[in-house]
Each structure stands twice: as structure tokens, then as C-alpha cells.
């Protein structure tokens, strides 16, 4: 269950209005008219080195739902702001976003910079990057953090270039050097084999994106509040160059893997699709979701949306059970922040045991059914995964 697929009764069935635009078919007749009016970011003056202050977190929202990574960033942003002794602010762009504003404060923001404009209703790179650039130029944040979602990465690359500043993608650790007021941006390089700490010199804001679930979500503090600074977008709607015609959301009958509290994952060591079902049974018994290593996905035992690791998802559940997974670095980078890790592997030297809280050396095909039975029989309260979000 995730908040994303819940439909709020207040909002119209789809908050997103579909445009009825006829499909474009290829028209090979070449025209040499090159008349197009764009809004060149280039025309926006690059920021002067004015004293910058404050940490900003971009609050990503789609149809009134905030991407959880935004609150995770608010959590780490709070720690950095306290170290630097500066304010923490959220940035919220969209239309009819008033109901979301108080959440920013409850998750830790001191201030919220917001623009409410119909042109910001569906995310487009064009309008959202201009809006964010305008706010940065007006208020000079020192650090700007953005979630490394498809939208966040689309936006951050444009904004960093327009502001002529540095950007570090997919950070897994963030810290600050208080004396130099530098953001220490650590990210995996070369397939996770090494970590590189990257700094940005003489340009502001220092920009970083962070993958979902790398940091944990802070507790909501319902009593917190703060001031919203509203700005205008001031763009001419007739000059836009792109338009979202339609948005097709994935049908999800289950939650998102990267929001699950319990994940039972299987790897090549399970040997067959039938054995992989043992993973599904255990997941079901304890209210978890299934995860998979890349070979398990490639063999068709699990869909790609369940792949954990460098080319899949980063997850951070309370419990991660890895059965028949060797623990290659590309898998570990996606799950090593889980609270409790159980590894079941018949090879006592498998690298997965280096990250496991509890390791069991043995055959997963016989252990999984035994564990399913034992845990199923002994669970008295509700399994953790069954009553989330409700």
C-alpha cells in the first residue's frame, strides 16, 4: 500500500487534465521555417557570487503527492543546516499546492519558497527549471538538494547548467565542512567499488541529487510551522515549447519496493522459478515484498521492478532476507542500508555474509519452507507489512 495510488476524495478523479490533441504522424515534407519561440535559459543571467545562505530541498510532487525522497532529504538537510547554523528551506512548485505547504514544515523546513501557477501543474522541464532558476537567483541558496528520481535528474541537470554551478548525481552520503562551508558529496563510482567524495568550488548553490531510500524519512512533527514565501512565475503561456498530452500511471496492485518494510529477495542460487516461489511464500507469510538479484530478474523469476542494486532500486527496509544471493557489490549498494539483513547461502565465504546481521550457511530450498512455517506459526500480532499507511 502506498500513498501514491490512493485517490483523495477531494481531488477530481484525475487531477491531471488530459488534452485532446490529435496524434502527430510523420510528415516528411521538410519545411525550412525555423520560427520557434523558446524561453532560453541562457538569457537568464548567471548568478553573481553574492553571499549565499541556507540549505534548500526541492519538494517533488506529482498530482498532489510528494515523493518520499523529498522528506528523506529534509531529514539530512536538517542535520546539515544545524551544523552550518543556517536555515533549512523547502522549494515547492506546482498548481493548487497550498495543501502541501504545511507538510514541509512538519518534516523540518524553517521556510518554504513556493510558486503556484497553472503552467507548473504537470511537471515540464521547461517551466519547472525556469521556476527553480528564478528562485535560486532571487534568494541565493548555498546548497540545493534534489531527489535522484527521473524528474529530479531531469530538473537538476538543467538548473545546474543554467546557474553555471556544479552538480553531483546519486550521492549516498552528505556532510559539510563547516569551516569552508563546503558540501561533501559522496557517491559510488566504478560500479560501487569505490566511493568518491566530490566538492564544488566557487559556485553556488552546491547541488546534489540523492537516490530514494538512501536516507531515512524523519518523524513528522505536527506542531512545527513556518513562513511561506510565495513568488510569481511570470511566464507567457503562449510561448511554451512543450506540453504534456497524457500521463499514464503504472497499475500497481502492490506497493513500491523501495517503500517496503520487509523484503525477501532471491538470487541465482535458488536455481529455478519453482524455487523462487519459496521466496514469494515467505514474503507473503511475513507481510513483505519480493526482491531479486539481477540474474533472478534476467531468468524471468521476478519482474524488473523488483531488482535490487545498482541498475535496480535502492531499498532500505527494516528487514532484508537474501536467499541464494552472493552479495556482489552491485547488489550490496542497493540494500546495505537495510536495518536487519539475513543471508542464507550455502557458501560460507559468500560476500553477502559481510553485510549480514544474521547469517545462515545452508540450502535455501530447504531452509525457506522451514522459516516460512516457523514464522507463520509464531506471528501473533499483525505482520508489519500489512497495516502500513492506513
Amino acid at each position, binding site marked *: 500500500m502506498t500513498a501514491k495510488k490512493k485517490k483523495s476524495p477531494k481531488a477530481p478523479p484525475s487531477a491531471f487534465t488530459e488534452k485532446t490533441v490529435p496524434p502527430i504522424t510523420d510528415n516528411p515534407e521538410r*519545411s525550412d521555417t525555423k520560427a520557434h519561440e523558446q524561453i532560453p535559459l541562457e538569457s537568464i543571467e548567471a548568478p553573481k557570487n553574492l553571499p549565499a545562505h541556507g540549505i534548500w530541498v526541492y519538494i517533488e510532487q506529482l498530482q498532489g503527492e510528494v515523493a518520499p525522497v523529498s522528506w528523506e532529504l529534509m531529514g539530512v538537510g536538517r542535520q546539515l543546516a544545524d551544523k552550518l547554523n543556517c536555515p533549512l528551506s523547502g522549494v515547492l512548485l506546482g498548481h493548487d499546492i497550498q495543501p502541501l505547504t504545511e507538510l514541509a514544515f512538519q518534516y523540518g523546513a524553517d521556510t518554504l519558497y513556493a510558486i503556484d501557477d497553472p503552467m507548473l501543474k504537470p511537471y515540464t522541464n521547461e517551466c519547472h527549471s525556469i521556476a527553480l532558476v528564478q528562485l535560486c537567483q532571487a534568494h541565493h541558496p548555498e546548497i540545493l538538494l534534489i531527489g535522484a528520481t527521473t524528474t529530479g535528474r531531469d530538473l537538476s541537470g538543467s538548473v545546474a547548467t543554467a546557474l553555471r554551478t556544479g552538480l553531483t548525481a546519486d550521492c549516498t552520503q552528505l556532510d559539510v565542512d563547516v569551516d569552508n562551508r563546503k558540501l561533501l558529496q559522496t557517491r559510488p563510482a566504478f560500479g560501487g567499488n569505490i566511493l568518491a567524495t566530490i566538492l564544488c568550488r566557487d559556485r553556488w548553490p552546491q547541488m546534489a541529487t540523492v537516490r530514494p531510500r538512501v536516507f531515512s524519512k524523519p518523524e513528522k512533527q505536527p506542531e512545527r510551522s513556518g513562513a511561506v514565501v510565495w513568488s510569481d512565475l511570470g511566464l507567457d503561456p503562449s510561448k511554451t515549447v512543450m506540453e504534456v498530452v497524457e500521463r499514464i500511471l503504472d497499475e500497481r496492485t502492490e506497493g513500491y519496493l523501495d517503500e517496503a518494510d520487509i523484503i525477501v529477495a532471491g538470487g541465482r542460487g535458488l536455481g529455478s522459478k519453482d524455487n523462487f516461489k519459496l521466496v514469494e511464500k515467505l514474503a507473503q507469510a511475513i507481510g513483505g515484498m519480493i526482491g531479486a538479484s539481477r540474474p533472478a530478474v534476467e531468468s524471468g523469476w521476478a519482474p524488473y521492478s523488483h531488482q535490487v542494486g545498482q541498475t535496480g532500486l535502492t531499498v532500505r527496509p527494516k528487514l532484508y532476507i537474501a536467499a541464494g544471493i552472493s552479495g556482489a557489490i552491485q547488489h550490496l549498494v542497493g540494500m546495505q542500508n537495510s536495518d536487519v539483513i539475513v543471508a542464507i547461502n550455502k557458501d560460507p565465504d559468500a560476500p553477502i555474509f559481510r553485510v549480514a546481521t544474521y547469517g*545462515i550457511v545452508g540450502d535455501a530450498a530447504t531452509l525457506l519452507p522451514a522459516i516460512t512455517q*516457523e514464522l507463520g506459526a509464531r506471528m501473533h500480532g499483525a505482520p508489519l507489512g500489512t497495516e502500513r499507511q492506513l
Partner: protein
Amino acid sequence: MNIAVCLKQVPDTSEVRINPKTNTLMREGIPSIINPYDVHALEEALTIRDRLGGRVTVLTMGPPQATDSLRKAISYGADHAILLTDRAFAGSDTLATSYILAGALGRLMDREPLDLIFCGKQAIDGDTAQVGPGIASRLGWPLLTYVTKIDGIDPTNQVFQVQRKIEVGREVVRCRLPALVTVVKEINEIRYAPLPDLIRAAHYPVEVWTNADLGLDASQLGLKGSPTWVNKISTPPMREKGEVLAGSDVAPAETARILADKLIPHIVVPNR
């Protein structure tokens, strides 16, 4: 339709090994490939050209060896190839790289108009996904990232329509031409040219541009023009060593019991 494709030569990272003692990359013998996403970008450009006419130009910024990747692109069917190489370009981060590529594309457009620029979603050696957006921003062109499908192109009215991947599904976007598009692998299947034009590729006069040709501001190139720099390299921290619960000599049911004792507190919401 004139299309430019930015492609990068990258080490085949599935072969990259780290020397555990020195923490450095063991580069010896690692083959170079065209960044896999860029191959899909090229494929899409060739398909559109074959349908609508026009020219496909491939560009890469890199050391002289990157010519190999350009020749490969010619063998697949690209019409023209340009190598951007200069000592002054070395050490560029994504901000400087996009400056150089945008400069070169601007130069190319002095010669022939471009309707589309294709990039890969990201380069597998850095995974930044920043250069495509950077080029678009510098040119003032519309940007469409994570494109999974090009639905239609209308050169007369200078518009086209794409599908792009978003976190929770996909969306259809209609956009003015010219535009910059970054592609994911799902956009197409690579159909290798039935007879890769190896002879043409081997003899193709790859154009080489240095900064003398581009006349870019030297302070924005290479290390000098790169705000980001690597301050420290380290190995990922390991978690504390865990506890081995049971070995293979213990019965599965007994092991399950021991494990359950440990896990129940983590997985059950206590009855209140």
C-alpha cells in the same frame, strides 16, 4: 531531418576491476565501447533518417582513440563523424563537457541546420545523466529525457511527440522542434546493419575539431572550467560483522526456530 548524436567512448564497466591494495582502477586490457545508451540514440537517429531523409552526424569529445567509436558509428550507417579533442578539454566535468559539446553543435549548425540532438540517458562510466540536459540548457533548446518512444515527427509544423518514462509510469509530451532528446534502452532494438560498412568506416575522414576551430572561452574548459572535483577516494564502509546463526549441520527446523527468535521483534507489530 538533420540529426546529431552525442556519443561517448567508455570503458566496459562490467570488466572494470579495482586493485584492492591501492584502491585504483585497473585499466589494463579493459576494452572501450560506445556507451550502450548512445548506441540506442544512434539507432533511433538512423531510423528517423531512413524514414524522413536528412543526415546523421555523430560527435564525441575525447582522446584521439575515441575515433574508434566514431568509425563504428559510421559502419552502422552514420553519415558524418566529428571528433572533439584538445588538451584543453581534458579533465572536464559535466558542466565543461556540455559547454564544449554545445559549442561544437553550434558550430555544426553554422554549416547545416539541426532538427534533433540525441544523447544517451547517461554514460555508464559516471552515471551522471547531466550532459544531455546541460547541452539543451546551453543551446536554449527544449529537453526531453528518458524517452522511450518517438510517436511522430512533423517537420512542417516543427513539432514532434514522444513518450517518456517517469517514476510512476510514463507520459506523452508534445514538443517544438528543434529539441534535445535523451533515450533509454527500451526505445528500440539495435538492428545491426546487415553488412556493416566496414570499408567506408575504415577510410572515413573523421573530422577533428580542436579549440582552435571552436574558439571557446578557455576559462570554461577542462579542469579550470569544472567546478566539481574529486576530493577523496575511499572504499565503501562495511557493516559490523554479523552473527552466524547455524551451520549446515543443524536441522532446518531448528535453524528456523533460532532465526524466528531473532526476527519476530522486527516483523510483528505488537498487539496494543
